[in-house]
């Protein structure tokens, strides 16, 4: 590929060469900007590229990545999903409430005693149960989103604008259940916390949390779904041209529903992971996460024009956003400026992305 381009480049006239380089620079402008940013930060503070700093970025990226991979499906269908953050909040609350330490005083369900008292006994079974439960909760809400979009031909923006409010309401109600009166749900069992952000290398001084491994596994599973299943291929076909897909015998209705159901399950999963990572959950947990996740999709080349996107792209998008966040913190940039920079990044990324689809006249 590169070799071919090099050969082609040699045959170009001086003027075309100039344009070729400008095009290449523009197409990769985002990566160039990030590279420049990293270099600047490293000069200012070399600790930015230390192992712990990189692992910190990856840890923070993990939950966002799981969520972004769910949203990416909706974006491939030329839709979006605004309910992701609120669904993460609800599922995080559910996960936390069911996995509070047995001896925690302010337990939400005082009578719930399914976790053994002995801190050394394993609770893998319970963890998997809760994980499946919250994925189901997410899937049900996702199914609802997909059904509304597919059946009534509503744009997912509208559907999820509605459901995110409904889900937030549900979270608020849930937080007042049992003996809880809307207080943060904390006191999470240490074994749950360890399961998510414990060190893969046990007591070693090199810290590498399990959550990064999980994110990698989940990414791989999604890659398989997108590239190796009929459903995945159908999803891209529907996103690209739903009428053509329909004529070809693809059920646009069920494909849409499945994409949103899968996305919902992914939000549930991200809620399960985030709950343990942050430790104390309220209905507000996850608020606004979906915007970061959507931004990551767009930066990673999952196009809003539909039918285009790669798992690798989403991963790069999420990590890039996190690098930018971390870099701005390292540079002691005030929070207000951080928002402005992130907004600008999204616009630049979209403008670059759009260049690829515009037919020049």
């Amino acid at each position, binding site marked *: 590929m590169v070799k071919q381009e090099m050969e082609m480049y040699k045959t170009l006239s001086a003027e075309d060469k100039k344009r070729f380089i400008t095009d290449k620079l523009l197409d990769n402008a985002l990566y160039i900007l990030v590279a420049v940013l990293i270099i600047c930060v490293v000069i200012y503070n070399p600790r930015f590229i230390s192992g712990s700093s990189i692992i910190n970025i990856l840890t923070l990226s993990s939950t966002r990545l799981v969520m972004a991979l769910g949203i990416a499906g909706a974006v491939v269908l030329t839709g979006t999903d605004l309910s992701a953050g609120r669904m993460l909040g609800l599922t995080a609350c559910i996960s936390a409430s069911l996995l509070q330490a047995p001896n925690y005083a302010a337990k939400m369900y005082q009578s719930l005693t399914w976790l053994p008292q002995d801190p050394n006994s394993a609770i893998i079974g319970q963890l998997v149960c809760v994980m499946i439960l919250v994925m189901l909760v997410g899937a049900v809400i996702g199914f609802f989103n997909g059904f509304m979009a597919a059946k009534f031909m509503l744009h997912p923006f509208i559907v999820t604008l509605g459901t995110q409010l409904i889900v937030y309401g549900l979270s608020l109600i849930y937080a007042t259940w049992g003996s809880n009166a809307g207080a943060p749900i904390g006191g999470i069992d240490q074994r749950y916390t360890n399961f998510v952000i414990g060190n893969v290398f046990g007591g070693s001084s090199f810290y590498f949390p399990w959550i990064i491994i999980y994110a990698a596994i989940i990414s791989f599973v999604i890659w398989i779904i997108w590239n190796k299943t009929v459903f995945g291929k159908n999803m891209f076909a529907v996103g690209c041209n739903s009428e*053509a897909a329909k004529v070809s*015998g693809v059920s646009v209705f069920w494909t849409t529903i499945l994409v949103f159901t899968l996305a919902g399950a992914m939000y549930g999963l991200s809620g399960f992971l985030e709950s343990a990572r942050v430790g104390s959950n309220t209905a507000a947990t996850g608020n606004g996460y979906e915007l970061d996740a959507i931004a990551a999709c767009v930066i990673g080349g999952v196009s809003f024009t539909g039918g285009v996107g790669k798992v690798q792209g989403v991963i790069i998008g999420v990590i890039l956003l996190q690098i930018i966040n971390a870099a701005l913190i390292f540079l002691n940039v005030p929070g207000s400026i951080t928002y402005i920079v992130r907004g600008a990044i999204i616009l630049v990324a979209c403008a670059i992305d759009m260049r690829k689809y515009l037919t020049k006249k």
Partner: protein
Amino acid sequence: METPLLEMKNMNKKFSGVYAINNAQLTLRHGTVHALMGENGAGKSTLMKCLFGIYLEDSGDILIEGKKVHFTDPKQALENGVAMVHQELNQVTKRDIMDNLWLGRYPKKGIFVSQEVMYNNTKKVLDDLEIDVDPKKILSTLSVSERQMVEIAKAVSYNAKILVLDEPTSSLSDKEVEHLFRIINKLRDRGVGMIYISHKMDEILRISDDITIMRDGKYVSTTLAKDLTMDEIIKQMVGREITNRFPTKENIVGDVFMQVKNLTGMYGSTIKDVSFELKKGEVLGVAGLVGSRRTELLENIFGYATKKSGEIIVDGKVVLNRNPKESIKNGFALLTEERRATGILPALTLYENATIVTLKRYLKNGLLDNSKIKKDTDWVMQSMKVKAHSPRVAIRTLSGGNQQKVIIGRWLLKDPEILLLDEPTRGIDVGAKYEIYQLINEQAKNGKCCMVVSSEMPELLGICDRILVMSNGRLAGIVDAKTTTQEEIMTLAAKYV
């Protein structure tokens, strides 16, 4: 002789190397209705679009009242007294009549739009044409004919000297047609020259003063309407020789394979009570004018449009074909007319585009096997002679003909028993057309059934065994392609309009 109102001379326009109009000409006199006639694709619309500044002619002269003009956009044309009522109405349907009438030239009072002036002016124009609707009505609440009237009112409001009406009556009832003709007569009395495009012979003979006939983009004749008969017009419209543009037919027509009984569509303007039989190894053409619902016939059979009543029997068994998925299972395939809208997956590669129908076939242990996908895609590219750098390119980068071959290949992979092809050669160069004819031939030879919708009569005569003629949503007749004439088909096509 007085200076004609409009003269178009030596008009040429090529699209991707092919002449759409070739030395076409037209002379319009003051205060007359001038019918412009020809088959689909004869170049009528192209010629009018050149006049109106939508297309730029490659060469030729346009003179209005002896003065040479050259419009580069419709706005200039309108400002110079040339207005056009398009076949497909381009209106802002969510706004009211007056907004539509004065769009782009709102009467102003200071920096604000003057609603009052606009209302009064609209009322005046509508009253003048005896169109009885409230200027404040939203367009989407009007009937199609009322919207058509609004479009004509708009043309009149520009004080147009030259008015082009492109198939204005295709969706009007008899009563509405009478109203339209009253308006046309009124405008004629005022000295407006009108160019009238229509397929309806009786209307043309009734309303027009002169008739110009075009064929294959070329000028054939201009005659006074009173000196012409319907037969003479048809003869001049289709009178061309069929050269050897088609492969020799080698298929053997067998027994009846599919029966369609009283098929009627559900929504919109659709087909009504269509019954016919399709035989094994047969190529059945579907002819008809624009708006005769040939596409709807195929879409109803394929379940892409909703059926209201009727029955489809394949090989003795009733099939429901409620949606495309079910129809594909029943051995049907539909190549749609609008390749870009309903055919290609533009951003995806040839792999995805070629194998979307047959995906389930490539599963191995529950996952898709790329080597099988590759094998089938290679088969499509080789047997269809698709010209592309690599199957990895997005299909939108291919030419129309190559895109079409990929889509046909997609269906042939599925090996359907009944192939429904809607304008399979539209927008394709001559060489690729021949290859597609060969493919159809081959399918028929292998005992498959094909239905081919086409607007090109010679094409139907060249590749089909029988030709079914649709007219205004109804079956007008089925003719034998070997013995029929274009005149017979044209007469049938006008049966119910």
